[in-house]
């Protein structure tokens, strides 16, 4: 096991900065997911841990040792690539034993270790096959087994499930989490899929692209609950959660904002502002009861019936609002006009200028 620490790390490709001022610690045995849209630097950060991308400034430590310039093989890491990076000219046994052979271990020892790890990942019957003859899931297991054989302090995963179909992805997700529990090693996992991020990580680092004008990549680093229920800024609020959080800019009047007829008192940090950005997740938005509190009038524009729940999209005077309703089949009809109200305990407020959370 080993901790990974980034201290003010910057990574540039030529003159183009990709990662700026990154400070983040992956604790011993922790499962951290790096998530963000394309170009946010998540794979570059992972590759910098592996030694496949150079660090331009700052320090990166693995197990307390500065590793900025260390050889990839000396970093106590193993990596599972998005493409699995299996050697197509070798059998599964050859792929698994490759590193051991390079490190000069004896044939009998290699055979024993390969057989052991193959049994762990359920590949014992496939050792003689080449990667081309395996399914996507089996290839994934070979890649995982190759990583296990290194007995590293840190496992790195670069979008390892993105090539699998949806059903298998769910199964492999659970398998990797189980694997983390049994191995106890630190794991850094890159994905653009927020479901993977939410369901797998002990902590999530939400990253944003510098090209979109952000001063640094790291937008928030916290547990899935923190990131979901207390997004630190508008970027995280919008990025995490499906369907996305409803976000509207409302004028502040008398220390409150109005959501249609519904009045919401603001915290002291927000009352001095001219406008405030208000966010509410679709599952917290409510359909008002007839004759109940006044809300915002909206017309049903689109209905997605998912069986166990409905996703309703409304057009309103202040923009489109999305509501997730668990009462499948009993909601309003398409084109029907209803009144929407906010759950005042589940409102997220952001400063329009800095886009940071207001509490």
């Amino acid at each position, binding site marked *: 096991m080993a901790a990974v620490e980034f201290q003010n790390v910057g990574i540039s490709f030529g003159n183009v900065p990709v990662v700026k001022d990154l400070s983040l610690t992956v604790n011993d045995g922790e499962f951290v997911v790096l998530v963000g849209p394309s170009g946010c630097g998540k794979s570059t950060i992972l590759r910098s841990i592996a*030694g496949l991308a150079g660090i331009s400034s700052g320090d990166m430590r693995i197990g307390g040792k500065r590793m900025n310039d260390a050889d*990839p093989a000396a970093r106590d890491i193993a990596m599972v690539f*998005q493409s699995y990076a299996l*050697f197509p000219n070798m059998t599964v046994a050859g792929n698994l034993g*490759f590193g051991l052979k*390079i*490190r000069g271990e004896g044939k009998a020892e290699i055979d024993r270790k390969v057989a052991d790890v193959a049994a762990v990942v359920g590949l014992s019957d496939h050792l003689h096959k080449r990667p081309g003859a395996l399914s996507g899931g089996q290839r994934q297991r070979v890649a995982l087994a190759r990583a296990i054989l290194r007995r590293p302090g840190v496992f790195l995963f670069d979008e390892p499930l993105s090539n699998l179909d949806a059903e298998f992805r769910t199964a492999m997700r659970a398998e990797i989490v189980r694997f983390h529990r049994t191995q106890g090693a630190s794991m850094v996992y890159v994905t653009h899929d927020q479901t993977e991020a939410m369901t797998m990580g002990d902590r999530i680092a939400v990253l944003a692209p510098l090209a979109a004008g952000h001063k640094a990549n790291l937008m928030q680093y916290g547990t899935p609950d923190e990131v979901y229920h207390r997004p630190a800024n508008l970027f995280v609020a919008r990025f995490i959660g499906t369907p996305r959080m409803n976000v509207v800019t409302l004028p502040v009047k008398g220390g409150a904002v109005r959501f249609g007829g519904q009045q919401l008192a603001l915290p002291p940090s927000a009352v001095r502002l001219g406008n405030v950005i208000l966010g509410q997740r679709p599952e917290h938005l409510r359909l008002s009861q007839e004759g109940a509190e006044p809300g915002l009038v909206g017309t049903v524009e689109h209905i997605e019936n998912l069986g166990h729940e409905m996703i309703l999209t409304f057009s309103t005077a202040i923009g489109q609002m999305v509501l997730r309703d668990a009462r499948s089949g009993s909601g309003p009809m398409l084109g029907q006009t209803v009144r929407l109200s906010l759950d005042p305990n589940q409102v997220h407020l952001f400063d329009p200028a800095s886009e940071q959370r207001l509490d």
Partner: protein
Amino acid sequence: MTRARRATILSYAILILAGFLSLFPILWIMGISLKTQADAFAMPPKLIFVPIWDHYAKVWGDAAFIKGFFNSVLAALLGNLMAFVIGIPAAFALNQRRVPARGAILAWLLLSYMLPEFLFVIPMYGLFQATGLYDSVFGLALVYQTFTLPFTIWMMRAFFADVPFALYEAARLEGAKSWQILLRVYLPMAAPGIAATAILNTIRIWNELAIALGLTFDKAQTVTLAVAAYRGYASIDWGALSAAAITSMLPMLIFAVLAQRQIVGGLSLGAVK
């Protein structure tokens, strides 16, 4: 007749014409090699004749031709060996490392492959006389590097470029050095590329005449010179010349048929990517 059918007939007609045009000279020479002198030059040409094997017996019994044939085999082996020993690491470095002006280097390699062979003969003549490489198969194979080496580097780099870079990175993470990655990952994966390059190099070396003419005299004469030797000062032994030409063609013909897939693969490299 439908338009598609007309197009099919037209393409077959063109193919038959092209096939006839390329095969006719070979068949004609083969005919001469199997005819008596009188039959060979009879007018109108004799299409029905009794084949004779005298010319082949003469050529296959001719020590100078046999020596030329095996000199060419040796020159092809040595030429390929030198080209791969130097060309493979060069191609790997060009592909894997950040080489300044890589594009210009690749363009120059292709250009030098196209330079006329005689360009090298005159400066090399003096050098080879001085160093004792004149009239040696080793010397010939060395000069053949002027075209085999750039071609080998060019081809191998293209084949290496087809190997996903993640494999290189995965091997590095396992602790493999660059040369180990080259030997254990890249070369096995680029094996069809090596075969295609070796075949194309061999064909070029086998058919080479100008350099062999300028830089050999007796000991290292190649098969092309041995064929040309039947063209005497005062007369031409057409029968033997034709038999020698057909004999010299056979190894490449067999080679080409056996390795057709690799040759086409090598020639169409990068055509669809």
